């Protein structure tokens, strides 16, 4: 100590023992760090959250990362989708199709907010044909019980596979399936409220009351897909009902059934057609083989009156059908063993979709709306959240006059 402190002087050995001890105490007081009062004045360290008495954590091991508080509070996530599309006889057309940011917030363990904000086709310009900025979803979840929760806001229609699971790495093919864009609109969102829950044994459901479709925008070619309100000038005069029951009780198997029913005549005075959709889908993976499929059927009432009214309003007969139908099957195979950490998926998808499956009396179905497509391609995933996609689309229709052209698509999509 003498070597470290040049001011240190050994107490005089001739002093009484008590004096020597006192001298040493004084010296110690000088050398000791700040008094206790100073330490007490500093802010106390934050207390760790008290663990629930019922579950006592013991260890966390494996290839984990501890999620810090910031991640728990749900910061920004998102996905991007860049496409290069080429139709036969045309050149490649690049398109930054989707730039999507997702924001969420947990007000508490029971009240949570979630939203999705999208810029399509990279540019929005007033008065010019360009992309769109859209609120795809924005809702509040009030979580009460596992089997009963409330949800309200801008909701994604729980119909089909892709409408709720549309992150680019989660489906094969550059573009979404034709059936899930023509027979079932995508991305289909409506204003509304409803119930969600997990019934146990792998069953879960969603049931909503929402704004209705707009029949004035239906057409023979695109069916009901242009009739979604997207939360803009929506009508709740005749709220629609939509729901989905899903079974995911067996690993890597998901079976689902969805329905929609509601009137759509708030923009067509005197004609208030009812739209009903029934849909069934399934996804299954076993070893390196995946398969998914979907069937959807749509009914529209009073199409004779609707076509007549829209012809009077616009001068063009929209030729809306009274029934639409579509289905697809998509087998896929993972070419690389799982241990590689990378994935190459070869897939093919057969789709059949007819937006004029049944017509009202006096209206003729056009054969070029009775379409089918073979889509064959590859998806390369260097990581599970990045997908480089390639596919070739063989388009066919029943028409012998209007032949649809084939196309090549390249895409790069990622999720973060």
């Amino acid at each position, binding site marked *: 100590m003498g070597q470290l402190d040049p001011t240190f002087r050994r107490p005089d050995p001739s002093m009484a023992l008590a004096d020597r001890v006192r001298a040493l105490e004084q010296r110690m007081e000088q050398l000791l760090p700040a008094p206790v009062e100073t330490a007490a004045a500093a802010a106390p360290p934050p207390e*760790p*959250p*008290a*663990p*629930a*008495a*019922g*579950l*006592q*954590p*013991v*260890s*966390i*091991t*494996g*290839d*984990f*990362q*501890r*999620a810090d508080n910031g*991640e*728990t509070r*749900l*910061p*920004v*996530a998102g996905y991007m989708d860049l496409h290069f599309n080429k139709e036969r006889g045309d050149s490649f057309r690049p398109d930054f199709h989707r730039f999507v940011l*997702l924001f*969420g917030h947990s007000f508490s*363990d029971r009240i*949570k907010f*979630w939203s999705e904000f999208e810029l399509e086709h990279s540019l929005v310009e007033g008065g010019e044909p360009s992309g769109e900025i859209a609120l795809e*979803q924005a809702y509040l*979840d009030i*979580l009460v019980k*596992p089997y009963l*929760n409330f949800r309200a806001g801008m909701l*994604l229609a729980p119909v089909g596979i892709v409408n*709720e*699971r549309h*992150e680019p790495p*989660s489906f094969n093919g550059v573009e979404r399936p034709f059936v899930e864009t023509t027979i079932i609109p995508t991305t289909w969102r409506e204003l509304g409220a409803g119930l*969600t829950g*997990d019934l*146990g*044994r*792998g069953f*879960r459901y969603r049931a909503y009351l929402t704004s209705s479709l707009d029949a004035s925008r239906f057409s023979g070619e695109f069916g009901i897909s242009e009739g979604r309100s997207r939360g803009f000038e929506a009508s709740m005069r005749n709220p629609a009902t939509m729901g989905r029951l899903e079974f*995911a*009780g067996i*690993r*890597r198997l998901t079976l689902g059934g969805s329905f929609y029913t509601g009137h759509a005549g708030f923009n067509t005075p005197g004609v208030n057609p009812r739209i009903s959709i029934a849909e069934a889908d399934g996804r299954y*993976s076993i070893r390196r083989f995946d398969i998914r499929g979907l069937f959807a059927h749509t009914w529209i009432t009073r199409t004779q009156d609707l076509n007549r009214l829209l012809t009077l309003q616009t001068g063009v007969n929209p030729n809306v059908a009274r029934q639409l139908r579509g289905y697809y099957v998509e087998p896929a195979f993972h070419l690389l063993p799982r*241990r*590689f*950490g990378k*994935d190459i998926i070869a897939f093919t998808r057969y789709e059949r979709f007819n937006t004029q499956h049944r017509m009202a009396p006096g209206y003729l179905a056009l054969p070029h709306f009775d379409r089918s497509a073979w889509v064959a391609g590859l998806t390369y995933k260097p*990581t*599970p*959240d990045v997908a480089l996609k390639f596919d070739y689309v063989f388009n066919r229709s029943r028409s012998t006059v209007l032949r649809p052209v084939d196309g090549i698509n390249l895409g790069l999509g990622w*999720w973060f």
Partner: protein
Amino acid sequence: MVVLMRHALTVLVLAGLLLAQTAENRKPDRVVTINAERFAFSPSKITVKQGQLVEFVLVSDDTDHGFRIAGAGIDVAIPPQGRGEAKVRFIAREKGRFVFECSRACGAGHNLMRGYIEVK
């Protein structure tokens, strides 16, 4: 007296460490593999017995997810598909229902990616 108290404290600390060490090292009473996939855990309802040492093996079938047991101080990130697994061990001390949820934003249905543990 002070010496006695010191010895007692040391014994208590050692006993605590030994117990924790035992719980970490001993074979769990129950091992449950939970698969996480947008936007569900499978299984989403897990029943265990009171007092059991439980181990959850958490595997993702797509992107990285989180696994958080509300109020229990457990919150881990599950690595994406093919990048390994996370293991969580806990002792079910009390009867009751404990909610777990995904704690990493994983897509449109993230809020509903939940499940619960029933301790009986």
